[in-house]
């Protein structure tokens, strides 16, 4: 049971690499936090700092109210699941799962009971005498989970635990991990670069880039109300489309986005937030799925272009769309028949537009 707090935490390596910059994060007890970002963004370093596997260069890390900066891993009550599973090759599955308890001097019969219970839940009880080398990838993953589960730790840390599994298994394991969190009633910190995992699992997502937290929020916050273009681009498939342009004629109640012939009448809710921004250079974001071809588009919400490419993805299709030389991608229904080179008009859902400052990339809306 732990609340984990980062206060102005810095991580600098001796080679000068600044992995984490001024991290402030308050992880609530029993919360499921996902650290999301591209490789090298500092998310794994952050996780390792919680585990005690990396030193903290500056700032404070608190478990509940205690500063734990200097506690080595074996004196922290955390369990961890690794990308490579890191099972002990020389120990049986039973001993792998029970090792953490043994090291913590839990009585033998208690170890026996807890290992069998965890193995039962994970449906690996028939494998307890095997060696890790005799297991499939999915089974190893379960052993790694079991090893962390039996510990009943104050915090459960996972470093890309699913990325070595094949696609089908990955999706079913997501559900199991979510169930595990519900059952264990403990704090989970989960590192991934996979937006889908983050959106499915997290209570809150922490998006990181270059060692800096970009945004902290619920999956809904992160996806619907990205704070900057990095967050907006990192989530969404295909990625969000950007069109650079200017804000015209805003008097606080109406506003228009214009770029050459293309113009959108921004809804009042957005216009209200823009204030007097006449002439401001902005970057407009349209999520790939926020267009509709069937709805009759009112003037000021239509975008016209040429079909450049068509990528069917089973349930939908991705439309590569040429807008005056700029390539945009939209997700449309697969029953819409288009040929390469066709001129199409798509109506944009104006209420779901995103607006960013063109230079800073920060949102203008929330």
């Amino acid at each position, binding site marked *: 049971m732990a609340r984990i707090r980062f206060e102005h935490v810095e991580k600098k390596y001796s080679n000068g690499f600044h992995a984490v910059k001024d991290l402030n994060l308050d992880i609530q007890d029993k919360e499921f936090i996902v650290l999301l970002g591209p490789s090298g963004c500092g998310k794994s370093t952050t996780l390792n700092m919680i585990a005690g596997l990396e*030193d903290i260069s500056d700032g404070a890390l608190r*478990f509940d109210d205690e*500063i734990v*900066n*200097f506690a080595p891993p074996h*004196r922290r*009550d955390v369990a961890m699941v690794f990308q490579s599973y890191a099972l002990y090759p020389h120990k049986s599955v039973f001993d792998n799962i029970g090792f953490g308890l043994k090291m913590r001097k839990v009585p033998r019969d208690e170890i026996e009971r807890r290992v069998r219970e965890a193995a039962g839940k994970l449906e690996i009880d028939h494998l307890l005498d095997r060696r890790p080398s005799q297991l499939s990838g999915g089974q190893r993953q379960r052993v790694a989970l079991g090893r962390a589960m039996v510990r009943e730790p*104050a915090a459960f840390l996972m470093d890309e635990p699913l990325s070595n599994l094949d696609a089908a298994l990955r999706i079913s394991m997501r559900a199991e991990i979510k169930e595990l969190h519900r059952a264990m009633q403990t704090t989970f910190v989960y590192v991934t670069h996979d937006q889908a995992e983050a959106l499915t699992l997290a209570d809150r997502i922490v998006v990181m880039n270059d060692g800096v937290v970009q945004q902290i929020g619920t999956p809904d916050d992160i996806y619907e109300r990205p704070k900057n273009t990095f967050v907006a681009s990192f989530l969404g498939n295909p990625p969000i489309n950007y069109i650079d342009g200017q804000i015209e004629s805003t008097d606080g109640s109406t506003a228009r986005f214009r770029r050459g012939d293309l113009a959108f009448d921004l809804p009042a809710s957005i216009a209200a937030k823009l204030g007097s921004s006449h002439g401001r250079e902005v970057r407009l974001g349209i999520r790939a799925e926020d267009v509709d071809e069937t709805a009759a588009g009112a003037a000021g919400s239509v975008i016209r272009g040429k079909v450049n490419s068509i990528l069917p993805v089973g349930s939908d299709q991705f439309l590569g769309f040429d807008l005056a030389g700029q390539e945009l991608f939209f997700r449309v229904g697969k029953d819409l028949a288009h040929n390469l080179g066709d001129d199409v008009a798509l109506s944009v859902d104006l209420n779901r537009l995103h607006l960013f400052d063109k230079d800073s990339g920060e949102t203008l809306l929330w």
Partner: protein
Amino acid sequence: MTDTVSPSGRGRRLRQRFGYDERNAALFLAPVMVVLMGVAVFPILYSLYLSFFRIKLTRPNQTPFVWFDNYTDLFSNELFWVSVWRTVTFSVVSVSAIAVIALLVSLLLNQEFRGRRVLSTILLIPWAIPYVANALMWKWIYDSGYGALNGLLYQLDFIDKYMIWLGDQDKTIFLIANAFVWKEVPLATILLLVSLKAIPADLYQAARVDGANIWQRFFHITLPAMKPGFMLVMIYETMMAIRHFDLFFILTEGGPGDASHVLSWHIYVETFRNLSFGSGAAMSYVLALVTFALSYIFIRTLGRRI
């Protein structure tokens, strides 16, 4: 969270400077460092110190400080230069022979054929034999009265009377080099085999498709790929050769005359027979510096970080 550490006060600052890992690393490395400081670094520095004194155990109460006299004496000592020359001859001859033989043997052992495993195991025998036993064996082979070399050459009619091989000033150093080579070839072969095995097979297939014949493949693929292995063998064996002592001690004691009076033998005689520790230390230091220079090249050329 009962067992977490909550650093406070004085302890906290200390721990910040030297984290848990630093303290453990220091603890784990301490024994090695103590051993190496005591039995490697200290002697090296001590011998530097000694080399500035005139120390003769025959005159234990007079050990004047003589600055660089031991070194200047050294360089004006004719026998020293003879020993340097002998060492160079011995090293050049044996290292080139080792390189050539090891190349041939490694090419052979890189082929697939029946009995290859057995052959490579047999090859380890010279490596495992103690140098003293090796010396004893060759001394017996070279023996002037009853040795195998005489016997064999006599039976094959190459010689008409038994020769005193090790007594021949022109041959001694080469005969000793032969004994050295015989023992060192296995290690050199193993090192070369590693670089041979590292050559990807598709390189040869590609060359074949390009129409390269066996010699072209050897000179354009095999040899260049073996270059690092070769460098390693050359430098490692050079280091072994210039410091070698055992064979000279048992086979010839530096003789006949000064025909096998190599540097390591010279140091031994100077130190333990003439008991002048100062000049012995000075010479040791020269030898150590030469070896350091060589190993520096060795590290730079291979450029491997561990």
